[in-house]
């Protein structure tokens, strides 16, 4: 099942690698995270310039037609460099939703600005008490007069990248009750309107998120009314493909750093890598990487082929790769000793990034259960 990458894909990988190697080392990232905005518009423009923001989109909406495999390639490299810019939120999640569910008019109006790097997006789906369930929605949307407009009222929680975003996609209920699958619709909302309140906070992995309060905010329907959950699920599958690739990138770096450290760090007159207990630990970390890498490729191929059952596979991968990442991150910190606990070393930052991904769009425990339940339902 090993992927034979095309010349084009190899070119994409090496160009991302070159850009990040030259411009996105740990010090550069540290400066970006500490800056007022907390992300870099300059780097975002460079990503656009390189075509990364166009890569996964179909050619007829102005993309490069790379699909989930190009997302995988990009995100693996972003994971290695702990990139904070909202590629997943803007391109994979919002861009993907617009491409999948939007009208022809919306695609032509919204996707070019994403591709050009001029507009940033975020998805507001979670609410207090919704935990990881996409269908638990109490935010309401009601029609505003005769035109296509709706007014949205409610509270959204932990919206990643919202402080950076120009637009939001918001899930809101147009009918039904709190947990109903049907009756949830998606809306495009301008983030800067007056009756939308945003309270920003910093995330464990050095990014920004916000709690959002909507009081009669005008929204434009995206996709069919009442069918938002199915659209969100497909969107989550693609986002999981991206996040899994990011974890795999991080695992690779953690394993390389830990191996290198174990060969140089001396205690008791020898390198710590000569201790059998640590050798076995690192073998398990290596195996975790191999498994995660394989499953990531399998998922990306299935996403590209729109296989039946891809959603179940996505949940399986989110769980398995999430647990692998957690194991490797725990052990990488442990084997680096006190150094692994410091803000100075990259190891702790990978640990935090993986911990963050393991919460986003459902934790490994949530997804292993969904994997089991979809099997039972089949």
């Amino acid at each position: 099942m090993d992927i034979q990458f095309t010349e084009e894909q190899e070119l994409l990988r090496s160009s991302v690698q070159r850009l990040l190697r030259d411009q996105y080392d740990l010090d550069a990232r540290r400066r970006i995270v500490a800056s007022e905005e907390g992300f870099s518009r300059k780097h975002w423009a460079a990503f656009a310039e390189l075509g990364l923001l166009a890569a996964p989109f179909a050619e007829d909406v102005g993309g490069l037609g790379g699909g989930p495999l190009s997302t995988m390639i990009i995100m693996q490299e972003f994971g290695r460099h702990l990139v904070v810019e909202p590629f997943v939120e803007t391109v994979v999640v919002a861009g993907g939703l617009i491409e999948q569910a939007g009208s022809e008019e919306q695609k032509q109006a919204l996707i070019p600005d994403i591709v050009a790097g001029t507009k940033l997006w975020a998805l507001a789906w979670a609410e207090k008490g919704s935990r990881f369930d996409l269908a638990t929605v109490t935010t309401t949307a009601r029609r505003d007069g005769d035109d296509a407009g709706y007014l949205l009222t409610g509270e959204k929680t932990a919206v990643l990248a919202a402080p950076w975003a120009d637009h939001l996609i918001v899930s809101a209920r147009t009918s039904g009750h709190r947990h109903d699958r049907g009756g949830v619709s998606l809306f495009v909302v301008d983030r800067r309107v007056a009756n939308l309140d945003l309270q920003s906070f910093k995330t464990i992995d050095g990014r920004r998120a916000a709690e959002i309060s909507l009081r009669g905010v005008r929204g434009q329907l995206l996709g069919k009314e009442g069918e938002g959950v199915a659209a969100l699920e497909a969107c989550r599958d693609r986002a999981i493909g991206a996040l899994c690739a990011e974890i795999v990138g991080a695992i690779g770096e953690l394993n390389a750093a830990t191996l290198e450290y174990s060969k140089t760090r001396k205690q008791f007159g020898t390198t710590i890598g000569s201790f059998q207990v640590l050798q076995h630990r690192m073998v398990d970390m290596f195996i975790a990487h191999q498994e995660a890498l394989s499953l990531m490729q399998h998922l990306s191929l299935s996403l590209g082929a729109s296989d039946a059952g891809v959603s179940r596979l996505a949940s399986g991968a989110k769980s398995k790769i999430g647990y692998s990442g957690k194991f490797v991150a725990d052990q990488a910190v442990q084997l680096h000793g006190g150094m692994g606990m410091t803000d100075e070393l990259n190891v702790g930052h990978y640990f935090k990034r993986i911990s963050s991904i393991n919460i986003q769009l459902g934790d490994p425990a949530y997804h292993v259960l969904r994997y089991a339940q979809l099997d039972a339902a089949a």
Partner: protein
Amino acid sequence: MELALSPEDAAFRDEVRAFIQDNYPAEMRVANPETDLSKEHMLLWHRILHKKGWIAPLWPKEYGGPGWSITRRFIFEQETTRAGTLPPLAFSVTMVGPVIYTFGNDAQKQKFLPRILSGEDWWCQGYSEPGSGSDLATVRTKAVRDGDHYIVNGHKTWTTLAQHADWIFCLVRTDPAAKPQSGISFLLIDMKSPGVTVRPIITIDGSHEVNDVFLENVRVPVENLIGEENKGWTYAKFLLGNERTSMAGIGRSTRYIERLKKIVKAEIPEDDPAHLEFIRDIARVELDVLALEATELRVVAQMARGIDPGPAASLFKIRGTEVFQNITELTHRAIGNYGLALREHPVSANHFMPGPDYGHTASEKYLNSRKLSIYGGSNEIQRNIIAKAVLGL
């Protein structure tokens, strides 16, 4: 679980419980006492315990200890941790104090012990170095005799709360030619001495707990040497053995489990399948604590009968830290999406944190507790100790 207590000991337990209830300062009940309190606030409880005569349970009466039996010391430990009081600074009271009254001379005892008890001097520990973590005997910080002074040069690291410290007790190498363990001395150094520099180390939770301490041509009077030159390793080991039972952290784990239960109840409805999973995971960790507590009580009962517990401390350290890491992970998971947020340090009311108050420190505790399996002799080292000392491997 409780020890079978005599009526006198039971009365003592009630007295301790009531004293905490009536006297623990309300201003010390902050979100995360380990990171959010100023030095002055941290010392409030210390001073109250000192006034009461309870600040140094371990110490013999002649040096200012309360003269408690092992059982009473354990009761006191249990009550204070269960109540979530901030323990007095261990480096002063539990670590350097006993070294001074056991191995120090009369002048040292008179000079240092009262100031430790009163909280006037804040001590930090100069053990680890960049090249000497688990392998402490390789310390390279040098002390060279120059008349009635030592000239000290070196770099200590992971020095907890050195930013507040008045004094540091250091392992220094006084005989570079001797075998690693035999050339070490135990030296007390005034942090105000010229040549001492403290550099903060920020950890992954964003807090400033530990530091690098640089010593450059620091002149230390010979009278600050503890015991004999080159015998420091003996004193260092004595100090490390002094922690014994407290590493299990039963009181703290029990408190965090209670809190976790409340969070799960509030966050996860009973018809969510995650609810069942959480109550099972919590029960599992509760049983870990129960088994550890039973072991601790067994060891305390043996110690009260004069039986040496041997390397029990290693078992408590391994399991106590693993259990607490597990609890902080479950807590972080229980708050769901709010687990994405991390409080900014230094803590300020101006920084917004999402979600209910009970979740605000979950991320930082989860991150910070990774250190537990590393410090104080990593858990790998503790397993080596048991393999060697208990199993004879």
